[in-house]
């Protein structure tokens, strides 16, 4: 299995009167572990959502696939449904089979769900209602759903914000495993130390592509100071 290569040309995005992204062009290699970094409000999530086809953008986005593309998305920590009595099991059944989730879970679906729960350490909590989960548990669930089916293109939007030390290490090793198996990983990550340690390539986004390329030559100390302190200076 090999994930897609992604080519972005002149990507722009305006929402209402505000210009969110301007003339962005970059490429991500097939099977790469690529990070988006940049200041808050710089447009990292918007760029990722353009790639997912969820934004009214202009410009070209091309995916080069050698095998059928399976996309998975781990969104930023979201508030989970509190009205419905929906358990972790129900939620994963919902995305795994066509048969209504209030009926029984098919055997094939159950195997996939069991494995995703095992991997993310949620097996003992499978009967918990999703509305009552802690931040870290919700993030584990969002990661678990991304494993069904095994994706060739994985988009992660700050998946570690609420995780404890053990959770962070678990997610890190899972992401590295998926990368090793050929999945193209696009990871929005604030933790520059982690980006430097794990990613191959990085795009620094602040409305435009500030810098793009291999991590070592792109995420230089000068760049880090320049981009990430700009907003602090502006505020001052």
């Amino acid at each position, binding site marked *: 299995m090999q994930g897609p290569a992604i080519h972005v040309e002149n990507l722009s995005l305006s929402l209402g009167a505000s210009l969110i992204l301007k003339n962005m062009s970059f490429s991500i290699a097939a099977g790469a572990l690529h990070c988006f970094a940049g200041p808050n409000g710089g447009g990292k999530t918007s760029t990722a*959502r353009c790639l*997912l*086809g*969820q934004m009214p953008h202009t410009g070209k986005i091309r995916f080069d696939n050698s095998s059928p593309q399976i*996309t*998975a*998305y781990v*969104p930023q920590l*979201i508030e*989970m*449904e509190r*009205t*419905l*009595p*929906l*358990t972790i*099991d*129900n*939620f994963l*059944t*919902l*995305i795994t*089979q*066509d*048969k*209504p*989730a*209030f*009926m*029984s879970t098919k055997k094939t679906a159950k195997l996939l769900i069991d494995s995703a729960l095992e991997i993310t350490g949620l097996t003992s909590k499978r*009967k918990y*209602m999703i509305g*009552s989960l802690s931040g870290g548990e919700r993030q584990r669930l969002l990661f678990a*759903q991304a494993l069904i089916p095994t994706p060739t293109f994985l*988009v992660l939007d700050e998946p570690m914000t609420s995780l404890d030390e053990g959770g962070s290490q678990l997610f890190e090793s899972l992401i590295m495993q998926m990368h090793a198996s050929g999945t193209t990983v696009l990871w929005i990550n604030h933790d520059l130390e982690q980006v430097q340690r794990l990613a191959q390539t990085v795009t620094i986004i602040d409305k435009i592509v500030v810098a793009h390329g291999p991590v070592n030559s792109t995420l230089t100390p000068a760049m880090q100071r320049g981009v990430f302190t700009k907003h602090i200076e502006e505020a001052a």
Partner: protein
Amino acid sequence: MSVFYTWLRELITQLAISGTVPRILFYEFVINALFCAIIIGPLLGCVGTMIVAKRMAFFSQAVGNAALTGVAIGVLIGESYTAPYLSMFTFCIVFGILLNYTKSRTRMSTDALIGVFLSISLAIGASLVLFVSARVNTHILESVMFGSILTVNDLDMNVLLAVAAITLLVGLPLYNRMLLASLNASLAQVRGIQVQLIEYVFIVLVTIITVACVKIIGAVLVEALLLIPAAAARNLSRGLGSFVYNTMIISTLSCFGGILIPMQYDIPVPSGGAIVLVAAAFFIITTIIRNVIPGFKEAKM
């Protein structure tokens, strides 16, 4: 279908005469009403769980109001005023689609937008009904709002059966996708679900269900049966399966109870009101159970 209905009614009447089933089932209108209840109960129960998930509690009320306009238009173009299904379905589907179209183009929350449409549809409906009521001299407003499950005929049952079949064939295979789309549209889209399209499908389903039920149990009662059983079942459910099945059971029992209890005990309450009261009793009982039995308690905030 009429042959089937006749056969069914004769069979049950015979059983009532021989004492196998309660004597009350001797009457044709009671059998018709129970036949509707057996379809409407599970149908509205199941759809109600989705209505709650999508926070569209008052949508069916808005469609019910739109049905008023539908009836008025039907009278104006010469349809039978007792069953103007063509006008009702056409107008209400257009109304539902228009509401959904507007929803995806404003930043308003769903409940506020439904409120706007609800008021508009009631105003148009009430105005038109006043205008046409001079022609047909009937209480259209009352019959649309409160229906009459004891006067249903074969055509009403056919329409209901057809709508139930469509809902089963279209709604069940799409159930998971509809629910995921309402839980998180972004996740649903990534999984290849056409979120917008599926919203329209749901809107049209709820619309045709409401219209099919308006003549039988009335717009107000459709609303009640979509919400109260789901609310009652929510009190006692610890998962999606028990929630949906409990809702369907409570909804069906409410219909049966509402029809049979007043007849059996000679209580002078119309069946429509009685159905809601039975459902409300379920809600009160389950709320008490939830607050008394420790196993059901959840965080308050």
